[in-house]
């Protein structure tokens, strides 16, 4: 009897050790322990047509976030390593010595340090950011030329200051109009916008929420920017009276600094309209 109890206790203890070991995996690393060459940089900038743009950044070790079977290791900024969002060049790259006062004032309006954030705003943007991990965000006034730069300034490693993006140009939705009503089973929904633009990818995302039926999602890709996309009758799901929010997303990829091991810099123009839909 005594031998059996001892064996059982050993087995339980071993099982607990295995569980503890598995759960103690650290999914982040301090930035001062990682060289710039080991960092994969994911930056995205979103413009919804308002006065400000919103930027998100995530740094991961070696691999992009959200890779299948990959246990992401997020880089947490420490030891005075900083991420800066700029409308134009970062201040470390220019000289203003002939006009320090005016130049600094101008930089102050076009530069902002990105801070750690818990906000989750654009989950429908194609899974580029892993919202379970460390990430950084900032807002900046809308830039007229649509050019933005993300700079990683480091205390003990190589800076990476030249990740850049030129946003898709501003556009407006002209149809459907807010609060229009459509029958999901009988009506064709035509989405119109202008101006059109080359070299952008376009996606249409529609989230339908119904009083008694929860949420339904629709996602489609527009092959060419011709200013129009049609949703056939019977495509949208839902039951009863629902609200359908249409998000039209124009996206363009930018370039990441060559000091990183890899990166993905994307700019998104998003325009939205909420309509009513019935059976």
């Amino acid at each position, binding site marked *: 009897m005594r031998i059996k109890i001892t064996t059982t206790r050993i087995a339980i203890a071993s099982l607990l050790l295995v569980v503890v070991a598995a759960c103690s995996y650290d999914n982040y690393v301090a930035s001062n322990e990682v060289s710039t060459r080991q960092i994969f940089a994911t930056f995205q900038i979103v413009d919804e047509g308002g006065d400000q743009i919103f930027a998100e950044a995530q740094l991961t070790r070696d691999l992009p976030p959200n890779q299948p079977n990959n246990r992401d290791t997020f880089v947490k900024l420490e030891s005075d390593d900083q991420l800066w969002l700029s409308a134009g060049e970062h201040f470390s790259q220019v000289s*203003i010595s002939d006009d320090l*006062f005016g130049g*600094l*004032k101008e*930089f*102050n*309006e076009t530069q902002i340090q990105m801070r750690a954030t818990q906000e989750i705003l654009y989950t429908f943007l194609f899974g580029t950011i892993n919202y379970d991990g460390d990430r950084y965000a900032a807002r900046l*006034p809308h830039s007229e030329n649509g050019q933005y730069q993300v700079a990683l300034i480091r205390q003990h490693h190589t800076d990476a200051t030249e990740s850049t993006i030129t946003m898709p140009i501003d556009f407006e939705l002209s149809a459907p109009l807010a609060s229009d009503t459509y029958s999901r089973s009988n009506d064709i929904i035509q989405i119109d916008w202008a101006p059109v633009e080359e070299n952008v990818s376009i996606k249409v995302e529609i989230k339908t929420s119904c009083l008694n039926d929860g949420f339904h999602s629709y996602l489609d890709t527009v092959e060419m920017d011709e200013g129009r996309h049609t949703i056939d009758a019977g495509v949208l799901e839902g039951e009863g009276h629902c609200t359908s929010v249409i998000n039209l997303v124009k996206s363009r990829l930018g370039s990441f600094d060559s000091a990183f091991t890899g990166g993905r810099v994307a700019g998104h123009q998003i325009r939205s309209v909420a309509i009513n839909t019935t059976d």
Partner: protein
Amino acid sequence: MSPIKALVSTLLCAASLLHLPLYANEVGVEINVGLSNADVEGYDAATAGNLGVLWHHQNWSYRAGLVHLGKLELSRDDSSNGNYGHIEVNGGYLQIGHRFNFAPIALEVGGGALLSTSKASLDGNRVDEDDDVSPYLDLRIIKSLAGGHVGLQGGFRYFVDVSGSDLNNPYVGVIVSF
């Protein structure tokens, strides 16, 4: 007249024409504190101060010393980003002034040159710096105390184009003469 006397007379005459002092009426130390304001919109005033030596002779004052024109900070109320930017100006100065006596006070008008280093930073990060030679005007009122060995003064300096901005510097201070 002997050659030596002739030489001394010539030197005296030349020196008086050039206002070169032969005998110091007053040698002293001054310290001033005040404010520094930039003429570029959006900057808050900074605390300023200077420490220097002076030599006063026959109503002319010659001053030299160090000046700290302060950390002029960008007003965060005007900044949509909340960044804290500031410019710190430090330098040395040389100044000549002429004193007009209106007992019991004196008015001194002068001008000089500021040799300064200005450093700009944003959120604690260095942005750029500039070395400058800037002219300035100085106007002050002096009231002597303690038998003339201590003077109280208040004045105003106007620095022209220090690293891209004119700076004005009102101040009050003390002179101690020996």
